C-alpha cells in the first residue's frame, strides 16, 4: 500500500533485541529478573522520557550533539567488534576482522533512507521472532524445568540484576532525535522498554532451562544453545543465526548513522526520506574501519561497560541540565 510516514519503532526494537541475543554473558537468573521487571521497566521508561524532554531543552548545544555522536560512533564500532568475536568463536579459521567489518558496513548504503530502514527492520524482526521460535522448538527436548535455579532474592542478587537490566542503550535515547513527523504512537518509551525487558527475561528463562546453573558462566550462551538444536533433518543451524545476527547489527548501524547525520546538522538530502547522502559513506566506512582496527585487541566486555556508564552519565546530564533549563526558562515560570 501507499507508504506513509516511515516508523522506526521496529528498527529500535530490533536493536534492543539484538543487544540481548548477542550478549556474551547473561548477568542474572530468570526468577530475579522477572520479579524486578516492573521496577526496571519503570526506571528505564522514566529515564528515556526524561532524556527526550531534556534533549528538547539542550539539543541545540554543539557539545551535547558531538558527545552523543561520539557515543554512537563508539557503539557502532563495539557492535562490529562483538560480532567479529562471535564469528571468531564459531569459526576460528574464518576471515579477518577487516572483511567482517566490510560485510557488516557495506549494506548500510542501501539502508540510507528511513523508509528502507523501517521496512527492512520489519522483515528482519519478523524473521528474528520466527527464528527464536524455531530455536525453542529445536532445543525443546533439552529444556528441563528442573534446571531452574533457586537464586536467593537478597541484596547482592537484586543489585546484580538491576545493574544488568538498567542499561540505557542508545536505542532508548534516539527517539528524542527524530523529527516530529517520525514520532511514534502513544507510550513509545514504555513499549520499547517493556518489550525489550520482557524479551530479555524470556531469553534468560530459556537459557536457564537449558544450561541450569551454568547459564551465568557460559560464553555466548544463546549461540551455544542454538548450536545444540536439531530440527528434523536440519541438525546444524548455527550458521543461520549468524546470518541473522549480522543483519540485526547492520540495521543497528544504519539507525545509528541516521541519528548521527541528524546530530551533525539534519538531513543531508532534500527530502527527509533520503536520510543520508551517498557522499557521506566513504567517511563513515573509514571511521568504522579505523575504530575497529584501534580496538581490535581491547576487551570488548570492558569497553561495553564503559560505554554503558558513559551513556548513563550522559543521559543523566541531559536530564538534569534539561530540567534546570526548564525551571529557569522564563516561558515556564508561572505568572505572578
Amino acid at each position, binding site marked *: 500500500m501507499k507508504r506513509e510516514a516511515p516508523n522506526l519503532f521496529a528498527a529500535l526494537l530490533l536493536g534492543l533485541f539484538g543487544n540481548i541475543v548477542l550478549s556474551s554473558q547473561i548477568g542474572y537468573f530468570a526468577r530475579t529478573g522477572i520479579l524486578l521487571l516492573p521496577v526496571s521497566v519503570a526506571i528505564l521508561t522514566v529515564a528515556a522520557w526524561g532524556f527526550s524532554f531534556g534533549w528538547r531543552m539542550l539539543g541545540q548545544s554543539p557539545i551535547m550533539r558531538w558527545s552523543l555522536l561520539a557515543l554512537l560512533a563508539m557503539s557502532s564500532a563495539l557492535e562490529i567488534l562483538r560480532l567479529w568475536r562471535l564469528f571468531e568463536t564459531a569459526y576460528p579459521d574464518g576471515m579477518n576482522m577487516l*572483511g567482517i567489518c566490510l560485510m557488516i558496513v557495506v549494506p548500510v548504503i*542501501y539502508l540510507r533512507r528511513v523508509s*528502507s530502514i523501517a521496512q527492512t527492520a520489519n522483515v528482519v524482526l519478523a524473521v528474528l521472532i520466527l527464528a527464536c521460535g524455531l530455536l525453542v522448538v529445536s532445543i525443546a527436548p533439552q529444556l528441563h524445568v528442573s534446571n531452574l535455579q533457586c537464586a536467593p532474592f537478597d541484596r547482592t542478587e537484586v543489585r546484580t540484576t538491576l545493574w544488568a537490566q538498567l542499561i540505557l542503550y542508545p536505542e532508548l535515547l534516539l527517539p528524542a532525535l527524530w523529527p516530529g513527523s517520525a514520532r511514534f504512537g502513544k507510550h513509545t518509551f514504555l513499549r520499547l522498554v517493556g518489550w525489550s525487558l520482557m524479551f530479555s527475561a524470556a531469553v534468560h528463562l530459556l537459557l536457564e532451562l537449558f544450561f541450569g546453573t551454568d547459564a551465568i558462566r557460559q560464553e555466548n550462551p544463546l549461540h551455544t544453545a542454538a548450536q545444540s538444536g536439531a530440527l528434523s533433518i536440519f541438525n546444524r543451524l*548455527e*550458521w543461520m543465526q549468524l546470518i541473522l545476527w549480522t543483519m540485526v547489527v*547492520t540495521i543497528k548501524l544504519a539507525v545509528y548513522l541516521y541519528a548521527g547525520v541528524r546530530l551533525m546538522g539534519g538531513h543531508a538530502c532534500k527530502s527527509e526520506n533520503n536520510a543520508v547522502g551517498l557522499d557521506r559513506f566513504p567517511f563513515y566506512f573509514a571511521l568504522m574501519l579505523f575504530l575497529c582496527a584501534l580496538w581490535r585487541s581491547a576487551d570488548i566486555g570492558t569497553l561495553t561497560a564503559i560505554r554503558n556508564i558513559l551513556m548513563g552519565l550522559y543521559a543523566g546530564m541531559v536530564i538534569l541540565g534539561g530540567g534546570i533549563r526548564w525551571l529557569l526558562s522564563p516561558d515556564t515560570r508561572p505568572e505572578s
Partner: protein
Amino acid sequence: MKEHPEERISANLQENKLFLQERFGDSLDFYSKDLTLGQVSCCIVLFTGLASPEKLTVMALSLLEQQNETFQNGARLCRYLLRQSRIPTEGTPITTRTMLVERLANGLAVLLIDGCPCAVGISTQEMPQRSVSNPGGEGNMHGPQEAFTELLRNNVSLLRRQFRTDSFVAELHISHTHAKTEYCLCYDRLRAPADTVAALRRRLEKVRLPVLLDSAYFASFLKQDKLNLFPAAAYTERPATACARICEGKVAILVSGSPFAMIVPSFFSEHFESLDDYSSGAVFAGIIRLLKYIAFLLSVFGPGLYVMALTYAPEMIPIRLLGTLAQAEAHTPLSPMLEMLTVTLLLEIVREAGLRAPKAISHTVSLVGALIIGETAVSAGIVSVPVLTMAAAATVATLAVPSLYEQSILFRFAVILLAGLFGVPGFACGALLILAMACGSDPFGYDYLYPLMPPCRASVRDGFVRTIWSSLARSEEEGRL
C-alpha cells in the same frame, strides 16, 4: 504551443508540394498525385508503405467523384470534407508542417488543397504488421492466448476490447526522441490514483532519449534509487494481464513498435503471479506460487550457499554427502568459488548463444553446451558433478520466474562472490543487500514488498498464496491501490 509562422501550411499548393518534394522527394515510398476536385486543384500525398492507394481510391476518391456538389474554392472544399462528407477524414485540419509530417508518418493520406492553408488527413492506414499471435513468453495453460503487436493502435484496441467501460483512458503522447515515437498511457480513471498518473505523466514528459524502441527504455527514468537493481516496472506481452493490472489501478504504457506493455507501479509479488494462478484452483495455485518463491530463493542463494557450506561451514552438509563432496573437490583444480563462478558463467554464455544464434544453428549450440561442455568438463576433471548439478538447478530455477531473470543472475554472482570470499558474513551481507534493495524500493510511493511485508491479511489473500475467488472478489476494494 505557439506555432512558428514558417511552420504553417501555405495556402499555395505549389509551395506545399515543393516543401514535401524537398523533404521526401528522394524517398522510394513517397507518393504524390495531383488531381482536381470540382474546380479546386489538389494533391494527394502519402507513403506507400504505410497508406494504401487502393483504400484511398475506394473510400475517398470514388465517393468524391459521385458528389454532385462543385467546389469553388479550396476553403469550401476543406470545410465540406471535414464536416459534411462521408469520407473518413480526421476531425481536425492539418495546419502546420509538423502535423503534416506526423500524419504522413502515421499512415494517413493527406489531401493538400490549393487556396486553403489547411490540409485534410484521410485514414487509409495499411502498413505491414505482424498479426495478433500467441505470446512468445509468459506461457499459460488457461486464459486468452493473444499477444500485443508492434502497432500501437492495435494494442490499444486489444485493451479496449477487454475494457468495455467508459472509464478506460488511452492517452497518446509523443516522446522527445529524434523519431518522435508515440507512446500511450492506458489506465482506468476511476481506479488509478490521479496523483500517481500525474506523477507518471510528468516523469515521462521529462524523458529525453535519442531513440525509443521499447517501453523498457523508460524504466531507469522511473526509478527513485539508481543503485537499486529491482525493476521499476513489470512487462507483459498479454493484453489480458495488462487489463488485469489496469483493473487494479495501475497504468500500462504502450510504445509504438514494441509488443510489450510496461506496468507501473510494479510490486515484487507480481513477478510470481500468472494468469493461470487465477484460472486454477486456489490450493494448487497457492502451492505453485510458493514453489516459485522457493525457486527464486534457490536460484539466487543456492550456489552461494553451496560454496559457503563447502568452504566455511561444512557442518551444515549431511554427513553422508560429505565424503562425496570432499572427493569431488579433491579431484578438481579450482576452489569451490571459482568452480561455481566458472560453471555459472559458462551456462550464461550457452544461454546467450542459444538466444542470439540463428535458428538453424541454435540446436548445435544446445548440443555443444549440454553435452560437450557439461559431459567432457566433468570427465576431464575441470569441474565436479556436485557443482555442475547445483549450478544447473539454479539456472533451471531461474526460469521459473523469468521476469526476474536479470536480477537472479546478478544477485547469484554477487552472493557466490561474497560467500566464497567472506563466508557466513559475506552471505549475510549479500542477503541483506538484496533485502534492503527490495525494502527500500518504493515505486511511486508504494511499498515494493506489498502485500508480502509486513505480513497482513493481504499476504494470504493474494500474496504468498491465493484465496478462493469468492473471497478474493469480496475484498476487491481493499486490493485496489
